[in-house]
Every structure is written in structure tokens, then in C-alpha cells.
């Protein structure tokens, strides 16, 4: 009996070293969010500003519930979210299909780099609102324009991360494949692309951030659905609670997609960070 007690006593300090570090960090995170909510509630309860500028958390919650049940601006919240998610997802697919091959070409071919690198560098710093009118003139006001605007914003991170990923492949890893008779295509498929995947994934996460950032711009013109459209409709009538509700929903979708990517990374790319 005495022995058992002693062992339990002895084990506790070891656990205690690890556990508080984790829960402490999480505690700070939760406390920060709660503190901000409290400050927000306080600011509106004490009427520091007009509700037009800052509606109370309760009103924003009401707006969310209203949008989810009755709907707002011609559609329910779920429909708005689905429309936005579809646009960002479709743009992501298009960008990957174009950006990864472009990155591979830049990284492996001198001619490819000569042609494509200046183009990517030209597109990279452009703000979406600047090329939006041009896209509308060229492609009309339909769905393709919206996807295209988001795709362009996502392109540079994907291309650049692919290029740097391919360059991260070890000299001897490449030489090994060549010494076993790899053709150019095999070298690309068996060594360069897998070696670049961790970097491409980092690029993907940055691109997704850029995609959500561009969503509102893309939904500026002739949209009838989407979170960006919902926010703009609400803004026109100074329905500030709905604006904030929309912002919170974009942030929620972005967070969920980020966690999804991290899960994929852990599940399918276990070698990341290992040598």
C-alpha cells in the first residue's frame, strides 16, 4: 500500500512539468478571446459608441441566427458560405493545376524560368481591386471572373513555394536518381516533386489566406450569393451587426480550412521536417 502511494507521488511531478505548459498556452489564448469579447460587450453596453459603429455581441449573434434561419440578402447563411467556399475551392484547384507545373518549369528549365519568372513577378504585387475591372472586361461578370480573380491572388505563393521546394531537393538525392538511370520526367516525379511537397503545402496555406482575403473583392460585382456579397449588402444599409457576422464567418471558414490542411499534412506527409 505504502509503495503504491509513493509511486503515484513520484510520478506526479514528471506529468506536472509537461501539462501546465500546454494548458497554460491554451488558457492564455482562450482568455484573450474572452477578454476581447468582454471588452466588446462592455463598450456597447456602456454606449461608448453608437450601435451603428459597434453593435453588441448579442446583436451580432442575433444577426447570425437571423441569417442562418430566415436568410439575408436573398440567401441563407449556409448558401452564402457554400458559394464562397466553392469559389475559393475552385480557385485553389485552378491555381494548383497551373501554379505547380509553372513552378516546376521555372525551377528546372532555363527557358521556362526566362519566360515565366518575369510574369509571376509581374502578377505577384498587384492588388486584386486593380485587376478586377480588367478581368470583368475580358471575362464578363459571371462566375469564371470571380474564380479567376481569386486564382490570380493565389498564384504567386504556389509558384514561388514550388520553385523553392524543388531547389530544396538535395544534390545527392538528385544525383542518386540520375545514377539509377532516371529520365527527366522520372526525376521530376520521383524526386523533385515529392521533395517540393512540404514547401508547396506551406505555399498552399499562404495562398488560401490570400484567397479568403480576395473573396470580398471578387464578390463586389454582380454576385447574388457569398459571404463577401452578404457583407457588402449589409454595409450599404449600415446593418453593422450583419457585417460583423459575415466577417466572423469568413474567419471561421479560413480557420477550418487551415486546420484541414494541417490534418492532411500530418496524415499524408509525415516526413515533413524529417531528414
Amino acid at each position, binding site marked *: 500500500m505504502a509503495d503504491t502511494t509513493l509511486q503515484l507521488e513520484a510520478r506526479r511531478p514528471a506529468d506536472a512539468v509537461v501539462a501546465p505548459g500546454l494548458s497554460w498556452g491554451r488558457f492564455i489564448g482562450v482568455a484573450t478571446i474572452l477578454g476581447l469579447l468582454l471588452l466588446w460587450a462592455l463598450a456597447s453596453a456602456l454606449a461608448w459608441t453608437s450601435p451603428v459603429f459597434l453593435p453588441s455581441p448579442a446583436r451580432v449573434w442575433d444577426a447570425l441566427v437571423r441569417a442562418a434561419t430566415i436568410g439575408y440578402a436573398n440567401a441563407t447563411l449556409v448558401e452564402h458560405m457554400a458559394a464562397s467556399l466553392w469559389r475559393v475551392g475552385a480557385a485553389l484547384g485552378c491555381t494548383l493545376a497551373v501554379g505547380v507545373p509553372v513552378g516546376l518549369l521555372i525551377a528546372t528549365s532555363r527557358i521556362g524560368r526566362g519566360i515565366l519568372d518575369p510574369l509571376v513577378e509581374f502578377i505577384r504585387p498587384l492588388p486584386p481591386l486593380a485587376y478586377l475591372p480588367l478581368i470583368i472586361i475580358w471575362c464578363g461578370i459571371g462566375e469564371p471572373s470571380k474564380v479567376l480573380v481569386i486564382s490570380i491572388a493565389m498564384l504567386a505563393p504556389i509558384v514561388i513555394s514550388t520553385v523553392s521546394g524543388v531547389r530544396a531537393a538535395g544534390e*545527392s538525392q538528385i*544525383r542518386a536518381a*540520375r*545514377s539509377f*538511370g532516371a529520365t527527366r520526367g*522520372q526525376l521530376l516525379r520521383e524526386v523533385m516533386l515529392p521533395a517540393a*511537397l512540404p514547401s508547396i503545402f506551406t505555399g498552399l496555406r499562404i495562398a488560401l489566406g490570400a484567397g479568403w482575403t480576395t473573396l470580398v473583392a471578387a464578390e463586389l460585382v454582380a454576385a447574388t450569393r457569398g459571404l463577401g456579397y452578404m457583407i457588402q449588402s449589409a454595409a450599404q444599409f449600415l446593418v453593422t451587426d450583419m457585417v460583423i457576422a459575415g466577417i466572423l464567418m469568413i474567419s471561421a471558414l479560413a480557420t477550418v480550412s487551415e486546420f484541414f490542411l494541417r490534418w492532411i499534412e500530418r496524415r499524408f506527409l509525415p*516526413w515533413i521536417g524529417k*531528414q
Partner: protein
Amino acid sequence: MSILSLHNVSLRYDPDGEPVLEDVTLDLARGDFISVIGRSGSGKTSLLNLAAGFLPPSSGRVLINSRPVTGPGPDRAVVFQDDALYPWQTVVENVALPLKLAGVAPAERLQTARRLLDSVGLGEHGQRRIWQLSGGQRQRIGIARALAARPEFLLMDEPLGALDAMTREMMHGLILKLWNDSRAGTLLITHSVEEALFLSTRVVVLAPFPGRIVLNEPFDFGRRFLSGENPRVLKSDPAFIAARERLVTAIHDEETV
């Protein structure tokens, strides 16, 4: 009889600079085990890169069976100093890679890869990942992968350089056994005199600035080990000790110049 030969080969990285290798002539036949040893800067690794076809010589010729070498190929498999394995593949997939590149069907190449893993004593680790293994195990995988290409020549660039002394000794026996089974003409770059002496049918000493051959001598300690002699007895044989002193002198002679 396959022969990989370097004829009066010189190599300069910079056209106006000192040559890295000057007028090197060396023949590696099937069944040979040649160790190349020398101080840093003597061009050991450059010699291997020339033989592998990673670099073209600045002058002279690199030939396989009298045909000029134009690039790397599966007839000359390379084992790298930093194992050069692929962390995105399992151990058995790494070993099977040369067969995959050659278009061998999946079932057949995995079977061959498992057999090779058995032969380097890692049969049970096929499904593991590279980073879960020790340095010695990783080099054994590198050797198994090179042998999967069924090469005529095996080019090893200081494969044991990063291993501890005990693991090295164990690897020596394994390398000799695999060499004896495959008969691949083996070129080993090393900076251990004992390793070179114990393993090789021939030891070549390179002197630096410019890299050139200053000693080229045959030995039979590896063959004696394979025919059953005790490695400890071999290494304390007066002939072994005398040869070691000769090689050490050849390596360090140039330093006084």
C-alpha cells in the same frame, strides 16, 4: 570482362586555375575492389564523380569497355556519403527505386528489394521510414539500393565516414560479403587507411595540389578475410602493419614539400 577506366584524366573546375586532378590513369575491372585514399583536397570525390559520369573530364577520357562515358547510368551505381535516401518513401520503396526507374513491375521489384534488405540484415525494417533508422542502417539501405540496379560497378563515396568505429567494423564484413556475391567492380573513397587496406584488392593514394596518383598497390587482406581468416589476426599481421605504415607515409609525404 567489363572495365571502367580513366585514361590520363585531368579535371579543372576553373579553366585558368590549378587542376583538381592531373593525369590520372586507373582501371577498375569487374571483381576488383579499389580504395582511393588521400588527404582532403586530393580530389578523391572528384575522381568518383568522373567515374560516375556526374562530371566530364577537362582532358583525358573516361571509358566503359572502351566506350566513352557521357553521363551517369545504372551500370555504375553510387552510394553517397550522406545516404541520399528519400524520406517520402518507405525503406523497401527506397531500395526498389532503381527497379521502378527501369520499369520493373511492382510485385517483382518489391520482392527483389525485400531480398536485398534481407542481405543487408534489415529484412524486418522494410515498412519503416528512413528517419526512424540509425546512420549505419541508412548506409546499409543505400548499399542495398545501389545493388538493386544490378550494377557492373559500385562507386562508394565515403559511405562509412559518419559512422562510429564499431558500426564501421561490422560494415566492413558486410561490404566484403556483398562485393564477393555481386562481383561488382567497386571503387571506395575513404580516409581510413585501415579500411582501405582491409577491404581492397588495390589501394590508390592520391596526393593533393594537384590531385595525382602517388601509390597504386595490390593487397589481399579482404580475400583472406573472406576465406575465413580472423579480422583481428589479419589486422595485426606484420604484413598489414607494414603496409599501413607505407600508405600513411605515402599520404603524408607531400606535407613536408
